[in-house]
């Protein structure tokens, strides 16, 4: 029982974090057709910026300032990099962001060193929020939950309740037409790219300290975020949300299950000492998102909620 409760809590938090990362990517992908390989690099930048700002001031300032800075970096990248490559097609754009991810990692290594930095949870939030089943649940994770839900509501309000949101939604599917109606599409692209990066940066700010802030964090998170976007379906924030939570839960539940294949498939007579019988469900956790991705692409290429096939 406690395993379920904890997996649920942690899964939802992790899922919301994934959504924070993937929402921007989904918007950018459906609007510009660019699968931004460097998106997780902005997540990393968020964590590092927050670490620096926190060192100079406080976590609370970092919480607001770091995502803004990351968003600005993203806007500059869109304006002076991606827009130039756009004419050479999607493959060139993909390669550009691939190179960019590489570049950001190297620059981070130069500024912050090759090993992890000591980015700490603010002491104000460093206490157990509540205790269930003998284990305490840290307040910081509750804080993450609040921030993530706040972001969710903010994004929903922006997209569904404002005219700017309408324009963005229209630009997702018909960028040219939106331009002919007199809306500044390049500016919309740049803004959305910036906001997307800022959201990734925010995820970095609040996750960098409970996980690890090191130059490898982008590479580790990047592929998972792709999985979310593809599984959710192109252009669908709802899909990205579902996929994020699904993957968050899937991974957390899988880690919690110690049963091995031999236990599960006992009826096939699989030996617990055999190579396959010995595999436990928990060791499958890192594989599951990618399995989901490949299966999804083969059997339902438009994703959970997507309108069009990838």
């Amino acid at each position: 029982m406690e395993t379920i409760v904890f997996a649920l809590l942690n899964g939802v938090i992790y899922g919301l974090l994934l959504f924070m990362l993937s929402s921007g990517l989904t918007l950018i992908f459906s609007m510009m057709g660019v699968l931004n390989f460097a998106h997780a690099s902005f997540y990393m930048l968020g964590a590092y910026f927050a670490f620096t700002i926190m060192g100079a001031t406080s976590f609370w300032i970092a919480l607001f300032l770091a995502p803004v800075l990351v968003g600005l970096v993203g806007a500059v990248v869109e304006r002076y990099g991606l827009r130039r490559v756009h004419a050479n097609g999607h493959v060139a754009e993909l390669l550009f962001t691939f190179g960019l991810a590489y570049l950001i990692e190297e620059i981070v290594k130069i500024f912050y060193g090759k090993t992890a930095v000591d980015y700490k949870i603010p002491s104000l939030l460093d206490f157990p929020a509540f205790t269930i089943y003998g284990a305490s649940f840290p307040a910081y994770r509750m804080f993450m939950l609040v921030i993530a839900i706040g972001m969710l509501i903010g994004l929903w309000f922006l997209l569904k309740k404002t005219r700017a949101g309408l324009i963005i939604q229209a630009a997702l599917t018909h960028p040219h037409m939106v331009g002919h109606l007199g809306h500044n599409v390049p500016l919309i692209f740049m803004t959305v790219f910036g906001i997307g990066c800022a959201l990734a940066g925010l995820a970095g700010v609040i996750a960098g300290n409970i996980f690890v802030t090191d130059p490898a964090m982008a590479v580790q998170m990047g592929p998972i975020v792709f999985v979310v976007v593809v599984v959710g379906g192109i252009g669908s924030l709802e899909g990205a949300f579902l996929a994020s939570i699904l993957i968050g839960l899937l991974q957390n539940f899988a880690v919690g299950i110690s049963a091995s294949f031999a236990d599960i498939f006992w009826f096939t007579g699989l030996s617990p000492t055999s190579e396959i019988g010995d595999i436990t469900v928990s060791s499958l956790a890192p594989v599951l998102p990618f399995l989901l991705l490949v299966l999804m692409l083969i059997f339902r290429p438009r994703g959970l909620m997507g309108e069009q096939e990838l």
Partner: protein
Amino acid sequence: MTQPMLEVKDLHAFYGKSHVLRGVNMEIMPGEVIALLGRNGVGRSTTAKAIMGEVAPKGEILFKGEPIAGLESHKISRMGLGYVPESRDIFPTMTVRQNLILGIKDMKNPGKYTVDDMLDMFPNLRRRADNAAGVLSGGEKQMLTMCRTLMGNPELIIIDEPTEGLAPKIVQQIGDTIAEIAKTGVAILLVEQKLSIALRIANRVYVMGHGEIVYGGTPSDFATRDDVRKEWLEV
């Protein structure tokens, strides 16, 4: 006083390596309705796209005397040039009302029409005002697209093949609507294939062939030019 609304001088355009427009010249005076005729594939839609900045143009395009060639499309639009593309491009998941709202360029400074004006003008649209635009019929979609463009208060509208794929009765209606719009003083560049409509509402006619204008004149003059029709039009 006699400054043309739109002047196109020696306009060229390329798709990849192939040379599609080879020196288009035309002009549209304020309040005029111009029909741009020609066979499929001669570059009529490309001309429209090049003017609107969707295809990279080479050459001179002046709108109210200002050069607009190569400007970003929103800038062209904000100068007062409206565009109704062949593909119509309504926003299918949004309501009719939302579609119309998106036609407004600047909320602080809206045009002479309000959303309600439009809905009053087209009772069909009013009935569907809060439905997703994707479920409208072809004719209704075409109406919506034109209304949406009107919301932006254009001085010239380029309408690309508005009657394509529509039933004859609807074609008639669309023709009437365009004539109606023209009456409000908006200049119109109508890219058409159906001579009947074009000749009915146009003040002047251009015929395109091979990426350039091969004929320009009034409908009555055009009626006498069998040679042009034979060489450059299907019928």
